[in-house]
C-alpha cells in the first residue's frame, strides 16, 4: 500500500527538493501550486487566499494545503487510501466526527454571506472589502458592546480538591475510605465489554469499581436492548457520557463541565489507543470468538498509555479540544531546509518521518498520498512524551503500533530515538548563536525575543526523531537514516536551532501584542489543523504575566515546589475549563456564533471563529469587551503574520 507512493515519488522529489539544505531555500513548495486545482485548498504561499471550501471533514485530517489533500479529503476514517480501512472503520470516528462536523457546519454556513471570505487575520489586517460579519461584529462591539453573545462563566471554586485528582487511591485504606476517595475524583474513565467485563478504570483497581461497572453495563445494555442507545445522563453534578464501540462500552464521568461532544471525543481517543494496541480485526476476532474474553490480557501494558491520555484530558488538552496539533515555531526558511535534509536522507522503507521537540511537531515528511491524522499523532505523542516508557528506556526503540486513522487493520513499525543530553550550545541559543544555517531570508521580520517561557510542564527540549515504516524488518534501514540525519542536523546547526526554539517555549502575550490585556490565547488554523497558544505558565485571570516560572526555587523548598506544581495544575485546568466552555458554546448544534464574549467572576473570555481560524482568548475579570476585542485582533494579526512559522504548511512530500 504505502509502497505505491514510491513510484510517484521520484518525479516529485526533484521538484520538492530543488536545492540542498544550506543555500537560501527556494520559495515554499512552489511545485505544489499547480496542484491546487486538485483540491479545494489553495496553496499557502506568502499570502494564502483563504477559502471557505475547507470542508468540515478536512478539519479532522492533518493535511497540508499543498494540493495533495485532494487525495484524501474523503471521510476522515477512510481518508488514507488503505483498502483495509473499509466500512468498518467509519463507525470508529463518525459518532464524534459527525457532531463536530455538523457543529462546524453551522458556523461555516454563514460563509456564503461573506464576500470573498476572509480569514481572521487578513480581516484584521484591515482589508476593507473583505470584512466578515465577525469582524463587523467585533468592531461594533468595540463601540457599542451590544451584538455580542454573552454567557456567564461558571463560578470558580468548582475545582476544589483538583490537586489530588491524580493521587492514587491507597491500597491499605478501608473500603469505605477508598470508595470515598474514588467518588471524590472529578473525572472517571471506564472501559468495559458489552458482556460487562471490566477492562479499564482510571481510578481504583477493578475490584473496587467492579460493582459500578456492573451497574453501568446493566443500564447501557437496557437502552441498547430497547434500540435506544443511551448517550449520557446527569447525576448530581456529574455528567455521564457513554460511547459504544462494537463490543466495548466507554464511559466517562465528568464534574469538570465539559460538553458531551468534548467528552465523547476523549472517549474516542481512548478507543483509538485500544485499536492502536490491538487493531480492529483482532478486537473483532476476540469478541466474535469469545464474547466473554477478558481484554485486559491482550491489552497488557496499554493501561499506562490510556491513563496518560486520560490525564491529559483531565488536566486539559488544547490539542484534543481543538483536534489539532501544535508545531514548534521556526523560521520558514529553517523549516524548509530541515525538510530538505530530512527528505534527502529518506530511506526507501520510510512511510512517515517526524521530528518532534517537546511534544511539538518540528518537521514532517510523508508520501504524497498519505497524510497524517491528528488522532494518530496524538497517540504517538502520548506514548513518547506523556508516558514514561520509551523515553526512560534510553537507546533506540522499535515499536509495532497500529495508527487507526491511517489504517486500523494492521501494524506499522516505529523507530524512535531521542537526542540525549546537552549539546555544546549554551542554554539560550537565540539569534546570536553561530549560524551555519543561512539566515532566514523569507522576508518576515525577525520577531525574536517574544517568548520567555522556558519551563512549562513538558520537557521542552526533548527532541525525537520518529521514523515509521510498514516493514517490520526495516529497523536497521531506519536507524541508518536516523544516524545520517542526526549527524547532518548537528553539523548544519539545525539541531541547535530546534533546541533553541524548543527552549524558547511558547510566546508570551505581551511579546506578541505589547500592552494587550489578554492573558492567554489559543489560535487554531482550521486549514492546517494546527494550533498555537501562548505560554501556559501564568494564571490567566488575576495577575498579568511576565513573571518567570519559579525555576530558581531553592532546593530545600520542595514543599513550595509541590504547592507551585499544584497551583499550576489548577491554573491550567481553570484556563482549559474556560476554553472548553467557550468552545462548547461556539460549537453547539445550531449555534451560528462567530463571536462570543463571556464574563465570569474571575475571568473574561472571547471566542472568535471564522471559516479558517478559531481564536479563544482569556483575560482578567475586569477587562472590558472592547479591550479584549482589540487584544484578540492583535493576536490574530500576529498569527496571520507568523503563519508560516507557527504552522507546518506543506511539510516535505515525497
Amino acid at each position, binding site marked *: 500500500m504505502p509502497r505505491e507512493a514510491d513510484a510517484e515519488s521520484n518525479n516529485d522529489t526533484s521538484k520538492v527538493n530543488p536545492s540542498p539544505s544550506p543555500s537560501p531555500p527556494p520559495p515554499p513548495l512552489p511545485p505544489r501550486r499547480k496542484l491546487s486545482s486538485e483540491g479545494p485548498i489553495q496553496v499557502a504561499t506568502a499570502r494564502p487566499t483563504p477559502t471557505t471550501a475547507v470542508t468540515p471533514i478536512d478539519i479532522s485530517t492533518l493535511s497540508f494545503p499543498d494540493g495533495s489533500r485532494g487525495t484524501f479529503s474523503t471521510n476522515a476514517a477512510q481518508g488514507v487510501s488503505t483498502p483495509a480501512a473499509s466500512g468498518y472503520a467509519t463507525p470508529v470516528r463518525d459518532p464524534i466526527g459527525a457532531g463536530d462536523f455538523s457543529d462546524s457546519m453551522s458556523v461555516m454556513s454563514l460563509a456564503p454571506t461573506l464576500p470573498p471570505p476572509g480569514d481572521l487575520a487578513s480581516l484584521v489586517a484591515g482589508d476593507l472589502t473583505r470584512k466578515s460579519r465577525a469582524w463587523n461584529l467585533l468592531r461594533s462591539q468595540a463601540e457599542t458592546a451590544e451584538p455580542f453573545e454573552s454567557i456567564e462563566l461558571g463560578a470558580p471554586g468548582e475545582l476544589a480538591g483538583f490537586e489530588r485528582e491524580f493521587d492514587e487511591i491507597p491500597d491499605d485504606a478501608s473500603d469505605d475510605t477508598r470508595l470515598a476517595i474514588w467518588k471524590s475524583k472529578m473525572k472517571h474513565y471506564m472501559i468495559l465489554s458489552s458482556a460487562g467485563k471490566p477492562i479499564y478504570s482510571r481510578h481504583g483497581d477493578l475490584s473496587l469499581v467492579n460493582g459500578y461497572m456492573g451497574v453501568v453495563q446493566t443500564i447501557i445494555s437496557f437502552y441498547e436492548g430497547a434500540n435506544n442507545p443511551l448517550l449520557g445522563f446527569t447525576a448530581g453534578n456529574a455528567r455521564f457520557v457513554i460511547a459504544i464501540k462494537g463490543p466495548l462500552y466507554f464511559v466517562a464521568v465528568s464534574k469538570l463541565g465539559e460538553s458531551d461532544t468534548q467528552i465523547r471525543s476523549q472517549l474516542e481517543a481512548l478507543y483509538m489507543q485500544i485499536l492502536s*494496541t490491538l487493531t480492529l480485526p483482532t478486537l473483532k476476532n476476540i469478541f466474535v470468538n469469545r464474547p466473554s474474553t477478558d481484554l485486559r*490480557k*491482550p491489552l*497488557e*501494558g496499554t493501561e*499506562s498509555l490510556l491513563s496518560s491520555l486520560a490525564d491529559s484530558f483531565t488536566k486539559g488538552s488544547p490539542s484534543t479540544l481543538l483536534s489539532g496539533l501544535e508545531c514548534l515555531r521556526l523560521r520558514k526558511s529553517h523549516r524548509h531546509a530541515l525538510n530538505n535534509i530530512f527528505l534527502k536522507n529518506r530511506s526507501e522503507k520510510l512511510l512517515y518521518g517526524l521530528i518532534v521537540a517537546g511534544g511539538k511537531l518540528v518537521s514532517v515528511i510523508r508520501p504524497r498520498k498519505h497524510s497524517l491524522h491528528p488522532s494518530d499523532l496524538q497517540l504517538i505523542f502520548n*506514548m513518547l512524551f506523556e*508516558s*514514561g*516508557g*520509551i523515553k*526512560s*528506556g*534510553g*537507546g*533506540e*526503540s*522499535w*515499536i*509495532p*503500533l497500529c495508527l487507526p486513522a491511517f489504517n486500523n487493520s494492521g501494524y506499522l513499525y*516505529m523507530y524512535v530515538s531521542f537526542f540525549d543530553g546537552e549539546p555544546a550550545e549554551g542554554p539560550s541559543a537565540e539569534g546570536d548563536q553561530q549560524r551555519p544555517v543561512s539566515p532566514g531570508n523569507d522576508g518576515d521580520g525577525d520577531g525574536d525575543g517574544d517568548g520567555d517561557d522556558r519551563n512549562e510542564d513538558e520537557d521542552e527540549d526533548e527532541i525525537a526523531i520518529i521514523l515509521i515504516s510498514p516493514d*517490520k*524488518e*526495516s*529497523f*536497521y*534501514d531506519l*536507524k*541508518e537514516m536516523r*544516524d*545520517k540525519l542526526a549527524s547532518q542536523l548537528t553539523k548544519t546547526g539545525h539541531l541547535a536551532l530546534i533546541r533553541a526554539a524548543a527552549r524558547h517555549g511558547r510566546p508570551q502575550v505581551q511579546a506578541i501584542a505589547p500592552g494587550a490585556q489578554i492573558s492567554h490565547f489559543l489560535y487554531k488554523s482550521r486549514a492546517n489543523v494546527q494550533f498555537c497558544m501562548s505560554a501556559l505558565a501564568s494564571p490567566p485571570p488575576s495577575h498579568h504575566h511576565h513573571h518567570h516560572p519559579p525555576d530558581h526555587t531553592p532546593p530545600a523548598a520542595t514543599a513550595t515546589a509541590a504547592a507551585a506544581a499544584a497551583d499550576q495544575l489548577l491554573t491550567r485546568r481553570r484556563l482549559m475549563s474556560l476554553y472548553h466552555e467557550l468552545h462548547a458554546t461556539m460549537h453547539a448544534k445550531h449555534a451560528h456564533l462567530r463571536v462570543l464574549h463571556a464574563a465570569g467572576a474571575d475571568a473574561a473570555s472571547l471566542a472568535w471563529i471564522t471559516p479558517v481560524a478559531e481564536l479563544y482568548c482569556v483575560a482578567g475579570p475586569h477587562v472590558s469587551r472592547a479591550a479584549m476585542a482589540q487584544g484578540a485582533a492583535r493576536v490574530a494579526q500576529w498569527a496571520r503574520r507568523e503563519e508560516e512559522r507557527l504552522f507546518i504548511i506543506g511539510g516535505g512530500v515525497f
Partner: protein
Amino acid sequence: MADSGNAPKPSSSVKLVLLGEAAVGKSSLVLRFVNNDFQENKEPTIGAAFLTQKCNLPTRTIKFEIWDTAGQERFASLAPMYYRNAQAALVVYDLTKPTSLIKAKHWVAELQRQASPGIVISLVGNKLDLTNDGAGDGGGEEGAAEDSGDARKVTTEEAKTYAEDEGLLFFETSAKTGYNVTEVFTAIANSIPETSLKTARGPNASHAPSRTEEQRVNLNGPRDSGAKDSCAC
C-alpha cells in the same frame, strides 16, 4: 574481514538479545549495564529497545548490540526477529516468581530450536536483592526461603541444575544493587567463540548497506557462517 585494519585491540560486535517474562527486570539489567543506573518503577518496554555498550576484555573489545525485548505476551511473536541472528541471549527470570522460570525455560527451548546454533545463552535469575542472600555472595540457602521475609521462590540449586543440563551460563543478579550484572555480560563476551566473532560486523552500528552479507537486516538465512555448535560453558 571486519576486523582487519583495526587498531591495537581487535574489536567486534556481538548481537545480544534479552528475553523473559514481563517485569523480570530485563530493561533494568540493561540500564544497569549501560548506564549504571536503576529506576524503581520502570515502565514496561513496548516493542523493543536497542542499545549498545562496549565490554573490554584483555585481548579484545566487544561491542554489544543489545536488543531489550518486551516481555508482554502480545509482543512474543516479534521475538524471532530479534534472536534470529543473535550471537548471545540473556534469558531472565525473577527469582521471586516461579512462573517466570517456566517462561524462561520456554525461551531457552525456543532459542535452541530456532536461533543460531552457536548462540551463547545465559540464564539469569534477577532481583537477588529481595532474597536473604541479598547482594551478598549469591550462595544458595534454599532452606531459608520460607522464613524471615525472604522472597526467593526459585532456589539457586534448581535453576543452576537446569542451566547445567542445558549448557547455559548461569547467574543470579540484582539490577537494583548492580550485583553480578557486569559479570553476566563479561562472561558472555568471553564465551563468544572466536569463529563467531570473525563474522561479526564492523564496529559501527550503522551497517553499511553496500555490504554483501547483509544478515542483520534481511535475515533471509537463519545463520551467519561461523561457529559450529559450541557449548559456552
